[in-house]
């Protein structure tokens, strides 16, 4: 089961989106969240430590979500970090690329709190 106190990093270049996702998380009882505006900044924060879970957008300047995912998987200390990828439409090639880069799950925008909960629960049930 997912721990309600786990620290979640929300990564998106659009501030409104970060706020929306953090609000949805709060609604689900996850109040311990932080945010980053792109992959590069996210990686810095993750390397500083303390995070348990990452929700990242795909489409971002500097470092897109897929690159962030790949970087996480190659960085000691955070390589097993669960990552949920947010995509706009279910674009097949994107999902395939994300799965190959060992994403834990993906969610298509726009989504509701219930859908987000399903995805998070699925990830953490699998991890045990």
């Amino acid at each position: 089961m997912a721990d309600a106190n786990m620290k979640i990093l929300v990564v998106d270049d659009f501030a409104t989106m970060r706020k929306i996702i953090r609000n949805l998380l709060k609604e689900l009882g996850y109040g311990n969240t932080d945010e980053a505006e792109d992959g590069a900044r996210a990686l810095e924060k993750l390397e500083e430590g303390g995070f348990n879970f990452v929700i990242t957008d795909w489409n971002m300047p500097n470092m897109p979500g897929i690159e962030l995912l790949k970087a996480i998987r190659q960085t000691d200390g955070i390589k097993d970090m669960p990552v949920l990828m947010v995509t706009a439409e279910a674009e097949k090639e994107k999902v395939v690329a994300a799965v190959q880069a060992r994403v834990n799950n993906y969610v298509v925008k726009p989504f509701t709190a219930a859908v987000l909960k399903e995805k998070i629960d699925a990830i953490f049930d699998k991890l045990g």
Partner: protein
Amino acid sequence: MSAPSNEMDEIIDEFVVESEESLESLDQMFVALEKDPGNTELINEIFRCAHTIKGAAGFLGFTKLVEIAHVTEDVLNKLRKGDLVVTEDIMDAVLKAMDIIKEMLSNIKTKRDEGISPSIEFMQIISEGKSAAVPAAEGGEVEKEDTKAGGEVSPEALEAAVEKREVPSFHKEKEHNIRVDIVKLDEVLNLVGELVLSRNRLMRLGSQLNDTRIEEEIVSHTDEAIAQLDLVTSDLQLAVMKMRMQPIAKVFNKFPRMVRDLARSGGKEIELKVSGEETELDKTVIEEIGDPLIHLIRNSVDHGVESPAEREAAGKPACGVISLSASQEGQNIVVCVEDDGKGMDPEGIKSSAISKGVITPEEAAKLSPKDALDLIFRPGFSTVKQVSDISGRGVGMDVVKTGITNINGLINIESEVGRGTKIIFRLPLTLAIIQILIVKAGSEIYGIPLANVIENIRLHPEDVKTIRGREVVRIRERVLPVARLESIVRPRTGMQRGKSDKIYIVIIGVGEKRFGLLVDELYGQEEIVMKSMGEYMKGTEGVAGASITGDGKVVLILDVASVLTVRRFPLAS
């Protein structure tokens, strides 16, 4: 989303602000893309912006916005993949879609609803533009003519489908939110911390001073603490001021698109060169210069730059250049609009002003060429015989001047026939801190904004004459209407003269208007922060606000513009 409604409101407000910011930079990218159609990096950037807005709009339930962003994104995606090539017509369609998105955002801001839905026809035009797409030729160059065959979206069809829309204009309503860089906020916070420390130190020293024995050491510590407080306060003032500063790019970004549209509809070729867009100005000043700049740039496109044929006949390149620039010079920001068009002829302006009754032939004869150019700022003046649909619906140059004067700015024109026109604004960095001349009139201390003080002269009370019941002073062969300063602010105190044998006259002016204020003492100048008068005293005629001087006295700050427009004082002009 089921967030509480006020939280939801906040998110929607942020969404609108953030989306509008992204769209502002988009216009510029579109214009750049038209010039450099193969630039995939630009297309990617534009695509990402539309995509992001669409994503957030989906969460917030703005389905109409999602719909139009989606079709736009599709066209952009085709451009990105090379299935479509950039043509002016495709750009027109995409730009129109952007305008609709902007309108929807502004409706969302006020009504929490997109308000409009793009007509079915418009959506079809956009989607036909993509379905009848002409594949980009492989490897080789693409001729414009070729691409017209299939993927064309005719401007006429667009006009028919979308009700005629104005060139995007600036939001009239003032925005109350400002997005501040965290670095700036941190700086302020840090300084406030310093300020608190200094205050604590002074308070402790103050309590020690209460001891009867004042030791030299305490005095020198007090001096130190005061010096420190002085330093921190000045820095804090600057830092807070900087929080209100925004790059002028916020205004400049809208112009490439505007010039593109105007030039296209006027059959002209114009390149807009923008520089100094990173220059920062107070938010209030930024909001005020938008309209004057729109008007000046319209004028340059409409009346300044000639048609390509005329330009070639005059031996100039067919493509005209309008340069828009901003830079900081000391405590001022200088903004320039310059074109390489036909310029203005002082004699033509004079005869036009005479025929419109703006001035008499005698007055015209006395005017220098430079003063003749300034005639365009007079109300009721326009050198264009035919009102075009570009500048015709705008405001007159007199309104431009008023707008700039309102924010304590100055305008200057330089023009040379055949070579072009340059209009220069000199604007204050901020409106928060002003320089005042401190004077005493009757029993009160007043402050007069230094920007409006023309000169000070010492007189004898008997130099003030009365002509037809009005007080005047003759200065250098000119009769200047005057009044006791305190009689303006407190009319019931009457026109008592001071008893002393000397009196000062402070000549104030806005534009060409002049007026003399009689005062008893001149105390010098000071930099102050103006406070509003509060509910009780609000609207006091002739008073703009109040401040406290270094020695703790309250000064009323004169509202020079209102003093000059009050009818009971005849003005020398």
